[in-house]
């Protein structure tokens, strides 16, 4: 099987809805319980000592998006939109094209490099989001020199084990401007369930 064939079949595969519990040894359970997307305040992009979302109270896991204003950095927000669109469309190349070579992706309790994310979790995210309905609740941004922060909050609705599940997903992107292009240098994801977790 070629890499392209593998990516294609994984993108078409149904979500892994057979897991009992949230995380059976894998750092990112894309469909078995809740997608364990993690994140943290954008002011702390270099540190990763956050608490685990699933065990933290909802109020305690909200990422700090203070100071972010809608349409403050339209080009950076456009990159955020492109990322969401590419993930849901299963366009791996488009996703990777938005990421800087030294990007870090904080998802689950693992901080991943670009290569590590591309090798495993990107495919899982694509598979999970393929059947999800995503509604953007809010989005804001802020520019600091040649860097920008884009924060967004969305509701994700999908079906797990035949039960409808709603998640509140928060995302903070750190971007850096290179020439005329904004590249994502850090991604932080965090989700909490809005309904009872499927058992």
């Amino acid at each position: 099987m070629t890499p392209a064939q593998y990516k294609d079949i994984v993108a078409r595969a149904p979500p892994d809805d057979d897991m009992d519990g949230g995380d059976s040894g894998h750092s990112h359970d894309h469909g078995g319980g809740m997608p364990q997307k993690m994140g943290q305040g954008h002011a702390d992009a270099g540190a990763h000592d956050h608490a685990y979302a699933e065990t933290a109270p909802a109020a305690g896991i909200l990422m700090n998006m203070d100071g972010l204003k809608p349409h403050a950095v339209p080009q950076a927000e456009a990159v955020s939109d492109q990322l969401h669109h590419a993930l849901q469309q299963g366009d791996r190349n488009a996703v990777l094209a938005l990421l800087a070579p030294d990007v870090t992706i904080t998802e689950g309790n693992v901080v991943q490099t670009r290569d590590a994310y591309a090798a495993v979790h990107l495919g899982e995210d694509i598979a999970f989001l393929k059947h999800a309905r995503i509604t953007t609740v809010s989005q804001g941004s802020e520019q600091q020199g040649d860097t920008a922060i884009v924060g967004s909050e969305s509701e994700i609705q999908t079906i797990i084990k035949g039960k409808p599940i709603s998640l509140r997903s928060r995302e903070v992107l750190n971007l850096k401007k290179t020439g005329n292009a904004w590249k994502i240098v850090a991604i932080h994801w965090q989700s909490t369930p809005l309904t009872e977790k499927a058992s």
Partner: protein
Amino acid sequence: MKKHIKHHSITVAVVLGVLAVGTGAFVYSGIYNIGADDHHTKPVFAVLQTLRNRSIHVRSEDLKVPDLNDPQLILKGAGQYAAMCTGCHLAPGMKTSEIRPGLYPQPPNLSQTRIDPKDAFWVIKHGIKMSAMPAWGFSHDDPTIWSMVAFL
């Protein structure tokens, strides 16, 4: 003659006793490095590998294999594999992963290695002691595990 047999029995008992004490002393001493970064000697590895392979095969040979050419089964298995297996067993286009270099024994690269379907099912379901292979049978039913085998 009886005296000769009795003498041999005592000798065997003494030898076995010395071996048992020696083995116990060796185990308790902590001399053997259990760290995954210090590999087994070739003879020890060969013994453990044979034990593992035979244990798996003896327990899997009577399994009834479903139709592994079912496209829907293969498709389901692809998603399962991507979610649970690639970190250790890699995937087409993957050269390594963050966890793989530190695993000992090294898990097979399943994008390049063909595993007997019955053995694969048994290993996925029951796991392997003293390795990083978990028993997925605790959280996955048999049809789901067969889907992974079909994909492989």
